[in-house]
């Protein structure tokens, strides 16, 4: 298809120029730089309409004059021009190394020559995507495109990933990029399931400019994914296997000196007999069943862990650190990916079929996912009609724990070897009836009894048809659908404690204390078991009809696309549940006590739009291209029969100009500067960024109602403004593309600014109004930044080929205006750490409580002059923005003979994070920062002299209880302690591959090529020394309130493995 269209364009363009000369027959062969035949290249005489297509063996025959120039082009190769001076030619096509002449897929599948594009776009090829062999396409894009931030907000066998282009522009609405697969507007669901190996390339349309034609959905930019299609030639069968290992790359910093204990020392400070030694008090604090780790220091003595079991046995172990016990509590993950593809084609048809199975066993023992997918893509040309069909079926199954496994592991004392506790069903000390910890259950028990199992069954695809009605007129229609059905069951296994565990388990001498009591504390409540069964259907239908007109008016050359778009998304979710089950391990809601729980949710949204895209230039002045776009949209999100048309429909438009400096002024062209393009664009985009059904005030069932027949309703808390209308984002961009030194240095720079006005914002209003939120068009947000992509072919003409590319982007935003009277609001988080929108600042801004600092010396932190404890400043204070300002990607590829080494680094920085994990680990005392339990003066502190009222640097007031209360009751509550700069450097992916020389491979007579590779993903991560907690990318929410993470994200992982690929 692509080739047909591009050659069609060339044909049409060139038919305008006619040449007259002595014509004779010329034959030739087309090969690539390695001498491999290039099948079906298009060969035409420059300036003539007629073209021929080379055959399967690369041979062609064409009539041309001796002074004529032949233009030879083929998909994936740089076009070349050859003088037809001889009658037999050997033509070499180079694989595409730069994209200057490339035809790119822009919004709505409109193909444009790179020269014509007046805005910034990037393209990531299949090779770049598969460097790290990630089974997730989005993760494979991280660090590869300037301005693109891929956030893995949660790791697991089903990672939660967010894709943002050029930062946030909506305060409370969606900021994620639109996903388009083969022209079909789809959703994150399809993106999560696509097989990255099926992807030919991803075009990234960064600004709203590029995506004007997608309507509201494209306001955040778009990832336009083109899947592979069969290459012309005989059937090519390829098989690939990837074996992937996954391990925890780092865990929070732990202390390894103190074991179980809490505040048991019976006397209060100052009371008669109070022991002044923290060491002695810590000894009193030791308990064999504590979840906290504020006991005395490890001494290697034999101590009991927990209590005596019903059979009289007990676990007596050395009171000493078990090295790396938490790390070893996780598994080495193993995944296997098998795939095979079949492709082929001839002059009029192409065919591509792939099957894939990807099985992951995660780092959390027992967590797995299993994805199987088939994709078929075929096209056929019948004279004036070409059709194509593209469909993918994917089934994915996930089985994950619903427990907070990381939290359970990192908060367990290090003297108990958790790795021996894996099998709680057979090991009595691992069983809840015998597990040592009175408060936290065995992590393996928690993980085993809490399961989330779900299956996605996904069908997506499209049919399209192109009809070339007239040389200057084409009609095109594409119908795309995506249907995803998720069925799932969340279960909790029933567990009843033994009477011994509840009432009798005791602590024997010599480890007993007078305040001990029989029975395990956590045995107070039996686990009732539960089951929740649900199914969710998501159905998206998208039809695009286009008329493509290419007509010159006098000297003006025009390409016009008129389109009509229909979009519908429908979802339905139904769940039923029971919070207790009767017979263990039978997970059906029929097996329950009490009422059935559950609910349903349905949504339908529809849009239609008309659009036009005009690309125009003047003959012989092709160095200047003007692109105008306009779209009219109507959306159901703002529709009511009673509303005016201008409240639910809207027109928007944009323009882009590209100027090829080196074509306009050829004198500028030199060996140094080969190509220079300047571009600018301006757009105004409408956006229906309102929560579905946001126009209605809702009346919901009151909590827990109905009670039998007794109905209770509550008035909703979000009040919609009556005049709500779509918001508008204006965007402007200026950029340039430069090629230097024989195209070996390519630089692409852009600057952009986006201004979003009248955002549909869920404003927090005082609850005293009777509502908590108001949905209203308010405010203005500015978003700006610049990007630079530098690609250098450092070594090219030697045996070693070395490419380096560097991407830098800066992005910032500012809340310029909010609702009158409102200067800030919080997205959420914890009461002591929130992410916020603050007028006049970038967003989101992290705020936490913290220390008081001395006005005399701002490095000193206030402590109490009586207790020595740090004083908490309860006011939430700004700690900085949570979105990275600077992002750098560094990629390189080195090729030597049959070896290829590729890697990509990514840096992100300029932002801050809060980790609630730090607070949790201070509570339990597992964090390294709690290591100092001896008598101390709180570091860098001052106090206010009670008499003079002056700040006095603290050199005298010691902390009262450094062995416990300092940490748990004071340090823990000061959230500033768990704020850290969120920068990181990650080796996103690295790949060393070896292509077995074809001479050897061919001898096998089975394979036509073979390749083996070793690769890694996120092999190492560098983070700030103050960040002792976790991966700064993590966030408790995939929403806008980023920057706050907690324990419920699975720890960061590194992955590595090997890959073999055979082509038959």
């Amino acid at each position, binding site marked *: 298809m692509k080739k047909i269209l591009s050659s069609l364009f060339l044909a049409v363009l060139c038919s305008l120029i006619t040449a007259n000369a002595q014509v004779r027959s010329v034959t030739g062969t087309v090969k690539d730089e390695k001498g491999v035949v290039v099948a079906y290249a298009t060969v035409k005489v420059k300036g003539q309409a007629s073209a021929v297509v080379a055959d399967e063996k690369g041979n062609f025959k064409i009539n041309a004059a001796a002074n004529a120039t032949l233009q030879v082009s083929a998909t994936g190769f740089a076009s070349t021009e050859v003088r037809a001076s001889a009658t037999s030619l050997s033509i070499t096509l180079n694989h595409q190394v730069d994209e200057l002449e490339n035809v790119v897929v822009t919004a709505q599948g409109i193909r444009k020559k790179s020269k014509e594009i007046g805005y910034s776009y990037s393209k990531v090829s299949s090779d770049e995507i598969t460097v790290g062999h990630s089974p997730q396409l989005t993760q494979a894009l991280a660090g590869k495109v300037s301005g693109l931030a891929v956030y893995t907000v949660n790791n697991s066998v089903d990672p939660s990933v967010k894709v943002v282009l050029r930062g946030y522009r909506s305060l409370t609405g969606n900021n994620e990029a639109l996903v388009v697969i083969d022209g079909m507007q789809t959703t994150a669901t399809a993106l999560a399931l696509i097989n990255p190996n099926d992807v030919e390339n991803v075009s990234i349309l960064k600004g709203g400019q590029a995506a004007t034609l997608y309507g509201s959905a494209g306001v955040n930019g778009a990832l336009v994914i083109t899947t592979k299609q069969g290459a012309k030639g005989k059937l090519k069968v390829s098989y690939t296997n990837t074996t992937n290992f996954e391990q925890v790359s780092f865990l929070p910093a732990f202390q390894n000196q103190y074991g179980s204990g809490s505040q048991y020392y019976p006397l209060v400070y100052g009371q008669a007999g109070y022991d002044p030694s923290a060491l002695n008090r810590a000894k009193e604090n030791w308990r064999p069943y504590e979840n906290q780790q504020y006991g005395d220091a490890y001494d290697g003595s034999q101590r009991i862990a927990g209590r005596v079991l019903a059979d009289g046995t007990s676990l007596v172990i050395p009171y000493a650190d078990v090295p790396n016990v938490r790390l070893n509590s996780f598994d080495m993950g193993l995944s296997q990916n098998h795939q095979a593809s079949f492709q082929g084609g001839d002059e009029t048809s192409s065919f591509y079929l792939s099957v894939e199975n990807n099985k992951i066993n995660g780092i959390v023992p027992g967590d797995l996912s299993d994805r199987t997918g088939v994709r078929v893509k075929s096209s056929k040309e019948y004279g004036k009609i070409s059709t194509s069909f593209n469909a993918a079926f994917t089934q994915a199954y996930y089985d994950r724990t619903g427990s907070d496994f990381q939290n359970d592991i990192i908060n367990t004392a290090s003297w108990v070897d958790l790795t021996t506790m894996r099998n709680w069903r057979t090991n009595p000390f691992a069983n809840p009836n015998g597990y040592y910890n009175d408060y936290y259950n065995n992590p393996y028990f928690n993980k085993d009894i809490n399961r989330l199992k779900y299956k996605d069954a996904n069908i997506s695809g499209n049919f399209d048809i192109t009809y070339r009605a007239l040389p200057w007129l084409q009609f095109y229609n594409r119908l795309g659908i995506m249907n995803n059905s998720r069925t799932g069951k969340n279960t909790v296994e029933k567990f009843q404690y033994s009477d011994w565990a509840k009432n009798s388990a005791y602590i024997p001498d010599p480890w007993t204390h007078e305040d001990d009591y029989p029975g395990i504390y956590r045995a107070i409540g039996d686990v009732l078991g539960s089951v929740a069964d649900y199914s969710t259907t998501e159905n998206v239908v998208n039809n695009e*009809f286009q008329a493509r007109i290419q007509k010159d008016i006098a000297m003006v050359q025009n390409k016009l696309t008129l389109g009509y778009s229909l979009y519908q998304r429908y979802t339905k979710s139904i769940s039923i549940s029971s919070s207790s089950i009767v017979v263990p391990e039978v997970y059906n809601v029929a097996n329950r006590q009490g009422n059935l729980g559950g609910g*349903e949710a349905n949504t339908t949204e529809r849009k*239609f739009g008309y659009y036009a895209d005009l690309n125009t230039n003047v003959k012989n002045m092709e160095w200047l291209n003007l692109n105008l776009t306009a779209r009219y949209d109507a959306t159901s999100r703002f529709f009511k*029969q009673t509303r005016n048309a201008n409240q639910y429909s809207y027109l928007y438009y944009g323009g882009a100009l590209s100027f090829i400096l080196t074509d306009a002024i050829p004198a500028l062209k030199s060996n140094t500067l080969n190509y220079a393009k300047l571009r600018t664009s301006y757009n105004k985009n409408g956006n229906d960024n309102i929560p579905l*059904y946001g126009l209605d005030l809702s009346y919901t069932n009151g909590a827990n109602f109905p009670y039998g027949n007794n*109905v209770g309703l509550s008035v909703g808390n979000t009040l919609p403004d009556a005049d709500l209308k779509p918001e508008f984002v204006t965007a402007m961009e200026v950029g340039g593309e430069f090629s230097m030194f024989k195209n070996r240095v390519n630089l692409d720079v852009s600057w952009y600014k986006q201004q979003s006005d009248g955002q549909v914002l869920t404003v927090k209003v005082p*609850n005293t109004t009777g*509502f908590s939120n108001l949905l209203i068009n308010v405010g203005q947000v500015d978003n700006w930044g610049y990007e630079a992509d530098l690609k250098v072919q450092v070594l090219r003409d030697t045996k070693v080929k070395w490419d380096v590319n560097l991407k830098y982007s800066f992005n910032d935003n500012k809340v310029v205006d909010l609702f009158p009277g409102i200067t800030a609001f919080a997205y959420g988080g914890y009461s002591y750490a929130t992410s916020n929108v603050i007028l006049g600042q970038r967003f989101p801004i992290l705020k936490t409580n913290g220390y008081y600092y001395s006005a005399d010396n701002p490095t000193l932190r206030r402590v109490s002059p009586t207790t020595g404890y740090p004083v908490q400043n309860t006011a939430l204070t700004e700690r900085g923005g949570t979105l990275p300002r600077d992002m750098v990607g560094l990629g390189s590829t080195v090729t030597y003979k049959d070896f290829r080494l590729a890697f990509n680094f990514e840096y992100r920085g300029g932002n801050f994070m809060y980790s609630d994990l730090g607070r949790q680990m201070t509570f339990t005392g597992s964090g390294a920062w709690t290591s100092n339990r001896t008598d101390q003066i709180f570091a860098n502190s001052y106090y206010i002299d009670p008499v003079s009222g002056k700040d006095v640097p603290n050199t005298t007031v010691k902390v009262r209880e450094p062995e416990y209360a300092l940490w748990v009751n004071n340090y823990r509550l000061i959230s500033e302690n768990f704020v850290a700069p969120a920068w990181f450097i990650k080796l996103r992916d690295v790949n060393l591959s070896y292509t077995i020389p074809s001479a050897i491979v061919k001898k096998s007579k089975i394979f036509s090529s073979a390749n083996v590779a070793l690769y890694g993903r996120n092999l190492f991560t560098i983070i700030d020394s103050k960040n002792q907690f976790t991966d700064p990318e993590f966030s408790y929410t995939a929403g806008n309130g980023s920057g706050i993470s907690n324990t419920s994200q699975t720890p960061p992982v590194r992955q590595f493995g090997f890959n073999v690929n055979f082509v038959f």
Partner: protein
Amino acid sequence: MKLNKLYIAAFLVLVGTGCKKDYLDVNTKPNSLPTATPAYVLANALNVSAASLVSPNEVGMFWSGHWTQSNGYIISTTLFSYAFTNGDFNYWDGTYDNLYDYQYVIDNATEYNQDYLKGPAKVMKALNYQKLVDLYGNIPYTDALKGVGNLAPKFDDQKAVYESLIGLLDDGIKDLKANAFASTYASSDIVFKGSNSSWIKFANSLKLRILMRQSRVSGRDAYITAEINKIIAEGSGFITGAEVGANPGYVASAGQINPIYNNYGYTETGARVGNNNWPRITDFLVKKLQATNDTFRLKRLAYAPGNEDIANPGVSVKPEIAANYIGIPFGSSAGYLPGASSAVGPVLLVRGQYNRPIVIMTAAEVQFNLAEAKQRYGSTVNLTGTAQSYYEEGVKQHFRAVGASSANVAALLTSKIDDCDFTTTANKLNAIAYQKWLALGYFNGLEAWSEYRKNNYPVTPNSKNYVGTARPLRLWYPGTELGSNGANVNAQGTIDPLATRIFWDVD
């Protein structure tokens, strides 16, 4: 060209369909109702009002010295070191949300021919505002609950709000007298099942509470006595003989059992909840009851260490003798594990009794308010009984409410022990204050704390986990209000919850 025409035709058809507004007419919320009958809104609002007393009552139980926490949990510094912030104890947002539902009922009842709902809604509105004043002092009242009509409600003076509530209750009584409850919707009234006369008595009792709360404010006597005499003149009287409680129809199913039972006691299947180990009886309360030989009530208020016998609901595992009850010194952070201290007793928790109503007001409280009125104002209030008779009736009502046999009341009342025997107690107001504090405990912890702040009696020891002598006197205005209505919050001046007093808390 045939195909071409077909295409154009298809194009026109598509465009034609798309143009129709019907294509877009899918924007009616399918997941919740577009409108609500006031009766159903009232049912939920009543249930929310009752359920949202559980948490402030707990705080009240702690800060009035009835309860403390066991040491199976690390010490809560917000509760026992008073290190709470404007992010803690936010009873503001939920209460205003609840108040709006009452406002909805008041505003829409006429349209739905449900005028009889206005009275109950107004009474409950007054109750909630009284709660807000007691927690926060100055609050938005006249500007509040107006939606977009006023997005930055100004704060009203707390005393003025208190006075307005009397008017609001009078209005409510007027509505209650004018509109009989439709029997069809009686089940929506989960408090009185549509009994207007009960609502009026409740309104009068609430007026009495609001008035007597101000009894120590100087210069208010004339106002208070005049208003009390108006209540008496009105003639409907006060609630008596039974508590005012709400029960939406609890059933033994998840989320549908009494939230107090579920919070501190058991699940719907009878499994003990972890929180059962959290609240513990203070050493002060246990010792005071022991010292006054008030063991009948002690056994109802607490279980002996070892807790309730699951096989024998309502009865402690250990023998229920006074010496077996162990309280924890208030705010103690170590030394008292759950198994070694007294848990919340059968007055609130008996395994299997998941369907008790949540008490909104006790009959005993009314009697103690009457006793205090008579004691303070003598013949200026037209009350027929004596302070002693109201006092003794109050103690009787409390015995009844906690489930202690009334046969044992007489002994206590004639025990010649201070704070029990009215006749022999020198400081009669202290006796009333102590018995009222005791009677408000468990049912209305928040009221117990308010009375404690007002009377400073009984003198309970301060938290062992707090350095200093201050006690919590109010809450911070919540951060949510500060963030969205900052100017009006800041206009209230500097607030220090350990120093800024509610207007009725004079010392």
